């Protein structure tokens, strides 16, 4: 999917945010640095800045989400934008309106940004290709393809805990990589930030066919896969995306790939454990690990707000400049 040109303007700045793939090290670093500035806003008396005052942001969710939608909403509100939440399966989609009709109708309401989640890979790109030039599109997860803001909040979390040098880090992504748009975006982000070693750890049936070409090492044994790693990113077992007999049972999965305190002993003593949520406790990991001292799962949620504020203000910037040029 060629999206580099679509999401970056002719001066190399972010216009839409659709996928990590093709974005430069400097853009990813700029997102993390900008997010760092927004992180402080949350601890003030007034938890918002006037940056996007007068802008209207539409959360367009064709697929269920709690964390992602609420943190996008909070990010928009902390930037002083007006927010409209639309859950489409309960709306016009069931009445037969096409995606393009939905888009045109919302455009007619003079909105400035779409945050799109959809079960089909490429849905956010479709929006970005068809929106009016002043509108930004942010991908909040499309099919099995990408979930770039989740990946960036994970990078932000890693950088805060482990420091800015990704080169000395070993990172293992564990679980259902095949169905995971989060894992794909994480792998692209980790590689672009020059992470020392990226591993994926999964049963043979849950490894994507193109795994090796993504620049990762593949492990089918949990203990071998997390040996000496600095960061473990657990993935959710996506029951709703699974067809057929890819797994014997959840119990069997936990026995082989579930993260427990005992198994963590082979990793680096300072290992950090992450999970994008929602957790299936007792399937991907023990509660002891999820709630333990190495877990940064709730920090990830908090960081999601600052990272989304950063991406929203950066994409809106490019349009600001385009408008200014039009006026002169």
């Amino acid at each position, binding site marked *: 999917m060629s999206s580099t040109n679509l999401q970056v303007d002719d001066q190399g700045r972010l216009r839409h945010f659709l996928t990590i793939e093709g974005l430069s090290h400097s853009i990813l670093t700029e997102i993390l640095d900008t997010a760092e500035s927004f992180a402080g806003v949350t601890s003030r008396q007034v938890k918002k800045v006037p*940056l996007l005052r007068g802008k209207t942001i539409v959360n367009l969710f064709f697929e269920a989400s709690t964390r992602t939608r609420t943190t996008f909403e909070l990010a928009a509100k902390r930037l002083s934008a007006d927010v409209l939440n639309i859950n489409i399966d309960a709306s016009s989609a069931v009445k037969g309106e096409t995606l393009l009709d939905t888009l045109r109708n919302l455009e007619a309401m003079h909105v400035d940004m779409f945050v799109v989640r959809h079960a089909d890979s490429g849905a956010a790109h479709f929006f970005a290709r068809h929106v009016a030039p002043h509108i930004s599109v942010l991908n909040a997860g499309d099919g099995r393809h990408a979930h770039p803001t989740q990946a960036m909040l994970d990078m932000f979390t890693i950088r805060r805990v482990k420091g800015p040098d990704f080169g000395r880090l070993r990172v293992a992504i564990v679980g259902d990589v095949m169905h995971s748009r989060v894992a794909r975006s994480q792998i692209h982000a980790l590689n672009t930030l020059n992470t020392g070693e990226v591993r994926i750890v999964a049963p043979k049936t849950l490894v994507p066919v193109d795994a090796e070409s993504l620049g990762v090492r593949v492990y089918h044994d949990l203990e071998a896969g997390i040996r000496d790693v600095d960061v473990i990113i657990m993935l959710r077992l996506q029951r709703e995306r699974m067809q057929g007999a890819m797994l014997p049972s959840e119990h069997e999965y936990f026995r082989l790939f579930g993260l427990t305190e005992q198994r963590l002993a082979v990793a680096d003593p300072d290992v950090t454990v992450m999970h994008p949520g929602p957790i299936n406790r007792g399937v991907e990991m023990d509660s002891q690990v999820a709630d333990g001292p190495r877990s940064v799962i709730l920090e990830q949620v908090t960081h999601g707000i600052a990272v989304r504020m950063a991406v929203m203000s950066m994409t809106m910037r490019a349009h600001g400049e385009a408008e200014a040029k039009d006026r002169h």
Partner: protein
Amino acid sequence: MTQTPVEPLLAQMAGDLSALLQRRGVEDPAMVGIHTGGVWVARELHRALGLEQPLGSLDITFYRDDFTRIGLHPQVKPSDIPFQVDDRHIILVDDVLHTGRTIRAAMNEIFDYGRPASVILAVLVERGGRELPIEADVVGTRLKLKLGEHVKLTGPEPLVLEIHEAA
């Protein structure tokens, strides 16, 4: 280009500031510098006055009034106010006072941290061109610039005031 050393200006500002604080009966004030030049100036004044509250810094990028025209500055730095703003006297410091828009933005940001008892404005250079009703309480030097000339503080080590001619 002409270059002016700033040490004498800073010494004079520190003297004027402490006289002003005494006159107003201000006790235990806090100081905030505006990125980037204002922080350099504030660092020197903070040391000269021996203030007890740690120095704060503001990056007013998120409060600028020209975001929709020029967009977000790519190198935004975190603002850091390491003290309670409520009921505190605050000395706001910048390098150059020109249109007044930066000070307007900085004051808006300060008020999002709390309600200060008062705000004093100290600037190294005051030049003409105000577009808002904002004036400094303490000034290092007043410059009358010719059309096309502009003034810039370079630093942090050493701090030098440069006046550039029209290109």
